[in-house]
């Protein structure tokens, strides 16, 4: 069975939800600990949402220095698929695995909302299960999700097709160009503000539209024949 690792930092909150989503997709969820130098042979990694280290200073700023992040950065160089959700996205930006930074929402409030997104890049290991330009509803919940990068970076993201998902029907935080998620130059590392792990079952979420992120990974890994 494909092994997908989920990191717990002190202050992580959504790791159980991610594990549930990974299992629902049919993979094995492997718990990774911030203080370990060990990735337990996982084939893909999720950095979950939450308030790592209390989000002191800036979201993700302290988490990027944890021992496990050293391993995650090495794994990224080897092409291991990595998904950062919300706080995980913030950590990936702070660790410079993804460009730009997530800043305080323009309206200055934490906001929870069932958000419509358009899936724009469906070639990554985390998004291949979606039809190109599919519209999905996945919750957002954050106080610091406004994506900021300088114009040349934004232009490069656009021209290289690296915006993987965009807010539609209203931008919940003032993100540049309605960006909800991006990928790196290799297309293996994805950062996303919305929470697909909260949309895997209409009983507990607005939809099950989020499951595709996890089944995508499973497909990518079984394609590799790992």
């Amino acid at each position, binding site marked *: 069975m494909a092994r997908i690792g989920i990191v717990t930092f002190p202050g992580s909150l959504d790791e159980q939800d991610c594990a549930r989503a990974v299992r629902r997709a049919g993979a094995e969820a492997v718990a990774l600990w911030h203080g370990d130098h060990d990735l337990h042979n996982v084939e893909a990694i999720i950095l979950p949402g939450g308030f790592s*280290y*209390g989000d*002191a*200073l800036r979201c993700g700023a*302290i988490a990027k*220095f*944890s021992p496990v992040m050293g391993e995650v950065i090495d794994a990224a160089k080897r092409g291991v698929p990595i998904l950062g959700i919300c706080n995980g996205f913030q950590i990936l930006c702070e660790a410079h695995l993804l460009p730009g930074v997530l800043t305080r929402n323009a309206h200055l409030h934490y906001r929870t909302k069932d958000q419509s997104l358009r899936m724009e890049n469906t070639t990554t290991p985390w998004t291949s299960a979606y039809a190109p330009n599919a519209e999905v509803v996945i919750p957002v919940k954050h106080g610091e999700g406004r994506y900021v990068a300088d114009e040349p970076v934004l232009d490069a993201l656009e021209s290289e097709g690296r915006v993987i998902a965009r807010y539609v029907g209203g931008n919940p935080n003032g993100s540049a160009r309605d960006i909800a998620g991006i990928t790196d130059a290799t297309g293996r590392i994805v950062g996303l503000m919305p929470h697909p792990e909260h949309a895997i079952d209409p009983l507990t979420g607005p939809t099950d539209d989020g499951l595709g992120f996890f089944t995508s990974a499973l497909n990518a890994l079984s394609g590799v024949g790992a």
Partner: protein
Amino acid sequence: MPRVVVDVLLKSEILDPQGQAIERALPRLGFDGISDVRQGKHFELTVADDVADPEDVVRRVADTLLANPVIEDFTVSLVS
């Protein structure tokens, strides 16, 4: 036009969780010998030339809006 700076810090007897989190992270990053880290807010404001006492105005702004006098102290200084 005068530019005035306001620095706001939690009163010293009040818990500063942010400062503590930073202090705990420093040794892990290889920085030793740093203690008593406090995190506060820094504001810069431009005051119009026709305002008689810019520092005094900003002090009142700080007292009503920028700082919470129940838990915070502030300092005001003119930079230019």
